[in-house]
């Protein structure tokens, strides 16, 4: 049996992920009261009262449009929570610039670079909630590490939505994330969804037809028996006659080695 309780001091957070359009505030109670609560939010800017429009979804969230930009006067947000047994409140005071925090970058993609065993090409997009990247450009922070290590490498990028990693360990699977920040104000976004990628490897993982024939006719237990996937000789991964030449060459090399081991 849970006892109904008056509300504890609520937790309030305000953030501008769509600068310069406005900001939103969201709140919750640290512990349940087990009876219905009502929330009232007030926003004061200097001498002006502003209306924070409640969002339908999610609940416990409201948003405000900026009427003026580059304000020297702070915003003061007060959240009051009331139920049958009592009330409580909390206040946040902040400058327009202090609460700017974009959403993480979207559509992060990492791909190996053909014929480059130490490179990975990463690209991403501005968060769709950021309304005006032309006038309010974002800068980005990329972090990456091989799965087998704990230490992250970091790169800060002030321009563009792509980057080529050039110091990846050959053949190791990498985990990569990107964060965004307004170029001049506010704080870094949370990290994006992580993507995984492994740099291109030279060793063919699938044997070509020639090599397979050589394999079956030789007595050797070849160390060239293929692990499942390949990066160069897969039909899908390879385009153009140049790459096919690589496939055949690799096949011939494998065949040659197999012969040596008879």
């Amino acid at each position, binding site marked *: 049996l849970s006892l109904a309780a008056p509300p504890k001091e609520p937790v309030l957070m305000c953030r501008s992920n769509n600068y*310069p359009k406005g900001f939103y505030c969201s709140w919750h109670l640290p512990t349940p009261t087990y009876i219905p609560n009502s929330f009232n939010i007030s926003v004061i800017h*200097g*001498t002006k009262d502003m209306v924070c429009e409640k969002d339908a979804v999610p609940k416990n969230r409201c948003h405000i449009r*900026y*009427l*003026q*930009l*580059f*304000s*020297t*006067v*702070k915003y*003061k947000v007060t959240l009051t929570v009331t139920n049958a047994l009592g009330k409580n409140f909390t206040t946040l*005071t902040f400058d327009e*610039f202090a609460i700017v925090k974009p959403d993480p970058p979207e559509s992060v993609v990492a791909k190996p670079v053909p014929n480059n065993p130490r490179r990975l090409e990463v690209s991403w997009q501005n968060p769709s909630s950021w309304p005006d990247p*032309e*006038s*309010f*450009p974002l800068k980005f922070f990329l972090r990456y590490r091989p799965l087998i290590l704990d230490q992250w490498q970091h790169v800060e990028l002030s321009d563009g939505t792509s980057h080529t990693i050039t110091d990846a360990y050959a053949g190791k699977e990498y985990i990569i994330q990107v964060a965004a920040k307004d*170029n*001049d*104000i506010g704080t870094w976004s949370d990290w994006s969804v992580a993507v995984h990628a492994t740099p291109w490897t030279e060793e063919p993982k699938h044997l070509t037809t020639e090599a397979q024939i050589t394999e079956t006719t030789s007595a050797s237990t070849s160390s060239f028996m293929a692990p499942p996937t390949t990066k160069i000789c897969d039909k899908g991964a390879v385009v153009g006659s140049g790459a096919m030449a690589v496939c055949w060459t690799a096949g011939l090399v494998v065949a040659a080695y197999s012969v040596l081991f008879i």
Partner: protein
Amino acid sequence: STGDSWGIFTFLCAALCNLPALPALNCSEELGAGQSIQQTYDLTRYLEHQLRTLAGTYLNYLGPPFNEPDFNPPRLARAERVPSATVDLDLWRGLTDNARLAANYRAYSRLLCYLRVLDGQVGTAELRHRLAHFCASLQGLVLSIGGVMSSLGYPLPAGPAGPPAPPGAPAAPNDFLKKMDDFWLLKELQTWLWRSAKDFNRLKKKVPPAVVTLRLEARGF
């Protein structure tokens, strides 16, 4: 000696406050406009960084409540002398390049004058040193903005908007209000530097095509 330096600074302030429009530089200067805008942008970022240290030191010198992070006083009428960066969003977006640059030029010219007044009055040597360094950098910014305007063929604003305030007048009636004036001066300076970063971002994107157009016109196309 420091006395001579202050004399020179005061003279420079007076000169800047009454600067006539510089003659427009010839068309070959337009090539550098894009780069000058980048340099001006970089200067605003540098100044913003410098101001953080200066403001911290200065507000501690003023003492409580001015150095409290939550200090949020109402804006008194007398504080309106300091040019405000605050602007309606659509208005800001719609500013022409000329108006955008001119607003920055006027604001920093005025703010520089007020800072010089402050410079003459502060107590500690450390503060005087920091203020002097900051004023020199701020003067560099004003000149840099002026350079961009001239290279784009815009006339420099005749002087700070409104009648130039003679140093120290109208004086605050008491010590607390004087400190309030100082507080708002630093606040407006900080806000202007944040705004300028955005102003120059916008200019960076827009200027190159205009430069090409101007050059073609100059050649009689």
